[in-house]
């Protein structure tokens, strides 16, 4: 991950000097600050300046996230760097330190000297910050996230999968999706072409964009999916979008939206049950389970009447899952 590190000047009076210095090649872990629009950059710099004066320790925390340092991740159960949990644990207080680290100033501490390992650690830090920022759903993150998304298309390091881990592009898309505004929907939608390098990330982002129009976009994408693997991503994103538990958590005010999304997703997925096999069918089962529409058992019973033995088995499995989810224990 390309990075430019500068020394942070911790006084308001020196802001202009710092800004001037950054104009050379200042930047954070994921962006050069110049990639933010001037107004956004200035606003973020001011916010960060004030916040840093009030809570300098939070900035150190981000710079040394334990799970992404070798002395941390080497002792964790899975021997790979990740630090999403600890960055999320910072709560809202972590927002500006993380935006600062991504886009303005990142002074890493304690990362590996080995280039390959350091690349993994930086990827994990970036993903961890994006995951944590996303869950905060704070619009102050919008300029940084959009700037990262804009440059992701041409960044191999943001697109490359690393084992089972998430790409930076996907983490960016998911953070955008969580913001959930019309602007976010628009930029994700712009990449819904199968030949677009950000296609898979955009699908994942839409799965977290809790809007009724996200559902329609995913249904359309599903109809256009050319292969099983693509279909599975989309089905998975549809399940995430339709998650009944997640909509319930948003409260009564979003209940109607949630019901519409769950309905739309269920309508699109039910016919796929009979058309898919094995892993693809399992993804459909899971997403229908997540949508958990009240009339799902009745609709499944209808489908079961004409199903072959394998489909009956899978429908019975799904009916069992739904029943357990609603059982009084």
């Amino acid at each position, binding site marked *: 991950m390309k990075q430019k590190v500068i020394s942070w000047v911790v006084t308001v009076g020196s802001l202009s000097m710092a800004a001037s210095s950054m104009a050379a090649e200042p930047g954070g872990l994921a962006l050069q600050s110049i990639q933010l629009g001037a107004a956004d950059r200035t606003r973020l710099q001011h916010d960060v300046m004030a916040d840093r004066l009030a809570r300098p*320790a939070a900035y150190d*925390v*981000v710079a*040394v*996230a*334990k*799970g992404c340092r*070798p*002395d941390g991740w*080497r*002792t964790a*159960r*899975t*021997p790979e760097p*990740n*630090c*999403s*949990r*600890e960055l999320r*644990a*910072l709560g809202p207080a*972590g927002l500006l330190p993380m935006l600062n680290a991504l886009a303005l100033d990142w002074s890493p501490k304690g990362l*590996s*000297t*080995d280039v*390959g390992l350091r690349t993994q650690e930086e990827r994990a830090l970036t993903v*961890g910050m994006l*995951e944590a920022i996303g*869950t905060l759903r704070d619009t102050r993150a919008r300029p940084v996230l959009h700037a990262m998304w804009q440059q992701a298309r041409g960044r191999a390091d943001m697109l490359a999968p690393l*084992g*089972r*881990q*998430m790409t930076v592009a*996907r983490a960016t898309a998911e953070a955008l999706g*969580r913001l959930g505004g019309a602007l976010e929907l628009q930029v994700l939608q712009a990449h819904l072409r199968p030949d677009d390098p950000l296609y898979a990330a955009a699908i994942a982002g839409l799965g*977290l964009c*809790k809007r009724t129009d996200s559902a329609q976009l995913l249904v359309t994408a599903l109809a256009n999916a050319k292969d099983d693997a693509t279909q599975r991503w989309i089905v998975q994103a549809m*399940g*995430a979008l339709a*998650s*009944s*538990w*997640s*909509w*319930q*958590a*948003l*409260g009564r005010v979003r209940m109607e939206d949630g019901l519409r999304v769950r309905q739309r997703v269920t309508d699109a997925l039910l016919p796929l049950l009979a058309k898919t096999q094995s892993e693809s069918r*399992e993804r459909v*089962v*899971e*997403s229908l*389970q*997540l949508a958990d529409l009240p009339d799902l058992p009745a609709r499944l019973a209808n489908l079961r009447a004409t199903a072959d033995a394998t489909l009956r088995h899978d429908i019975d*499995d799904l009916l*069992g*899952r739904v029943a*357990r*989810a609603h059982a009084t*224990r």
Partner: protein
Amino acid sequence: MHTDSVLQRLFTGTAAFGAACLLASCGTTATTGDGSTTTADGAGDDAGLDGGDVAALATPIVDLVVDANRDGVADLANADDQAHGNEWTADFGASYLANLDDDDGDKIEDVLDTVINGSDDELDLAPINMAAWPDAPDGYVGVLQLDFPEKVRLWKNGANGWEIVAGVNNDCVPTFLSCTGQDDTCSDTTAKAGILTAAELRTGVKLAIEGRDFRRDDTWDGNIHVTMWVGQGTDVKAKAIPTKDHPDGKDTVLLHVAPWIQNGNLTPFDEVRSANYFTPFTADLTAALGPNGANVKYTQYKNGSSNGAWNDAWTQDYYQTAWTAIPMGKDAGGKTLIHGMRVVNARPWGRYTSADNKCQAKLLPITWLRANYLSKDKAVIAIYLAPDTGSSFDSHGNHDLLPPYQNGQDKFPIGRIIHGSGILPETHAFYNAQGPQSPALEVTTDWLLVGHVDEVLSYVPAKTDRGWKLLIAANNLSKQMLQKLADDGHGDALLFDGKNTYDGATNNMIPAAKSVTATLNDSDLMLWSQQAQASADGVRQQVKDATGLTDAEIIEMPFLTEEVDGGKIAWQPGTANMLVVGNTMEIPNPFGPKIGGVDVFAKDLQDRLGTALNALGTDGNGMKVNLIDDFESYHINEGEVHCGTNPEGPPQPSMLWWLIKH
């Protein structure tokens, strides 16, 4: 096997002459049992004849027996040993051990040295008895051949005591100990020629098979055939002398390598190991495993890399416990006797403190295990083909054992190996090659951050027809319990009250507490948990399809799940990730919300697991539920109690693996 004992004299003309190929590696120079050199035609010093001699040939006695009736003795006078020496069935057939323990305590596997290290080591060899031919004339020799000389060593107990008579001596340090993957410390890879002298033919000699390894894959069926010819001069094998019982002039016996039998939760464990790094964890375990609990030995090791210390707290992950054994008859009460050893399987990768020392053999688990575990009746193996391969999936928390079951025609009377996604292909092949506990069942765990089957499944004894029940991660149940608390007006009650988690900086900690209401209103946590429920339900169905378990035999363990880097991991302490020892359960303390001073989640566990409600425990009256505080140690570092512990037990006489068809 039996031959005629009547000495006959025949004139066979040129039948006694010619070149012989005595071993699979034909034409190589080899060493006789007494150390003298011979060629592969088998005519050593004692043979005394060359191809030009013409002698009246005697009909030899060619008779090998093995312990075909599984009573621990290779008995020439036993009709079953004689009749079934060349078969391997559920009813008859001899077996042998891979002799990988270290009976003399020199920290070298017994199979890697060239001596029998006393009576304990001798016990690890499978006997073969050979009938004496008292009238064997000078010039006659016995020739022994192994069909897989690289798999075993054949010993004879002659005038010089135990000596290797056939097989490849091979004292190479195995490749798994070398980071370069090279066998670079061999001093003797000579193939022994399998020659018995005339004097040895006259007295008879005790033989014994020593296994060098387990069956690794389906390229070998696990059988070793030992064949004996007797003759004179050269070309003994090709021109063997017919006898009444052996018209082809040879006798062959078969021995089958004993499999590696994996332990599972229902194994009668006698010891549990863990690191000693975390005080609340070890203190709780000390009580749980002590005389008033599971009553097993509890061994702790320190952090570090010398004097028994080890820099890996994930004790479950860096080795898998198991055993191997062969039958040794029955005691006076009719109880089966066995002899064998514990055999642990090391993970392919170690924990490195920096990139610079990656691939140093001293950091591999097998190195520590050889230094600290290898001993009398305790062996260590590596299944992997190369060090520093594999991934988190190859940690042994991702490898477990379904307890015994039958589902239609599928019978697994001593359990079935179960593992999650992504393990090394050689490991899967090894499991399937063992037989009694295979084919291994693979379930999907790649949706988990760590990716281990022990994060979602466990197994517990029950007084039911099946004898056990399945425990499974249940986000559903946790959400319902929390919702009920909120509905009952306890939304402000705190989960994890008083517990801490990392704040991201060094080891600083911040309070982990979160209210019931805040938890239920966390739409991300709810999404992740519901996704985890769906994925765990998929695993549940895979296990049900394989085993025939009913829902009544599945017990849900409530905890919510979060997501990290695209993978799921327990947000509340993952209570399925527990240790089961006998009728005790060492469960991660859930630190649930307290109502009236009572932890609702802890009470739920006690009520459902610790009473007769679910007929758990061998008496059906419930398990002893021990809550272990792993929150600030294992839980916040991606694991729980099962990850931090590793139980083991001795070979099990009740598990008659040789009777199992597979």
